[in-house]
């Protein structure tokens, strides 16, 4: 089956990101296809490239990146939710006159239309919310 996941919870604040990542790995292990993870609401913090959690906790940002590298899962991040929360890629940082950027590939800032497309084109869209 073709799956997509929506993550609405911030990393380390709520269980949503941890559960979403575990679900992603589990469904791939079962032989399903995971098309993309869409980060929205506080879920966009999962794309913070500067995240530096203590070593005895799972590194969620790296976890998503690994998912992309190993299984080619797209990591889509809602651009409107990101900008208002200070998550900007290089292009947006430049456009808004900000020094430095907080989002980088393989995370990609995209619009909500992408989420609708994803939901309608995949067999299952599973939401992980706080």
């Amino acid at each position, binding site marked *: 089956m073709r799956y997509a996941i929506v993550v609405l919870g911030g990393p380390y604040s709520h269980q949503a990101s941890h559960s979403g990542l575990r679900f992603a790995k589990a469904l791939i292990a079962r032989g399903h296809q995971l098309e993309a993870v869409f980060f929205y609401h506080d879920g966009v913090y999962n794309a913070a490239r500067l995240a530096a959690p203590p070593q005895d906790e799972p590194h969620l940002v790296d976890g998503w990146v690994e998912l992309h590298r190993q299984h080619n899962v797209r990591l889509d991040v809602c651009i409107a939710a990101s900008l208002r929360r200070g998550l900007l890629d290089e292009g947006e940082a430049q456009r808004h006159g900000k020094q430095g950027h907080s989002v980088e590939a393989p995370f990609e800032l995209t619009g*909500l239309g992408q989420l*609708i497309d994803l939901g309608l084109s995949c067999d299952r869209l599973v939401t992980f919310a706080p």
Partner: protein
Amino acid sequence: MTDNVATGGDVLVILRHGPHGGSLLREGLDTALVAAAFGKRVSLLFMGEGAAALVSGQTAGALGQKGTHATLAMLEMYDIETLLVEAEALEGLGLVMADAEMDVQPVSAAEVADQVAAHALVMTF
């Protein structure tokens, strides 16, 4: 069940968080507007605390947050006409239909299941 409720559609957006104190409901509404702008037939279902968004006379308040009342007022412009509210949620919040800002259809728990089945995509906020 009325014809309106039975229609179904492409996308059902379920809003189950309150209109103030958090932005999930607003970001859920944004998703509904985008889906409608993409030409999809969108229905909204207010469940649990989400039903509080329907109470008329709400404003943005002192915090400078945008609130959801302005977005709700735009739904018609986006052709989002199927507005449903879980009857139990209204009762739980001590609300009656007359409190609602707009024309919404109360649905029972069983009808909620029908609605979920009648839409190609269900998104929950």
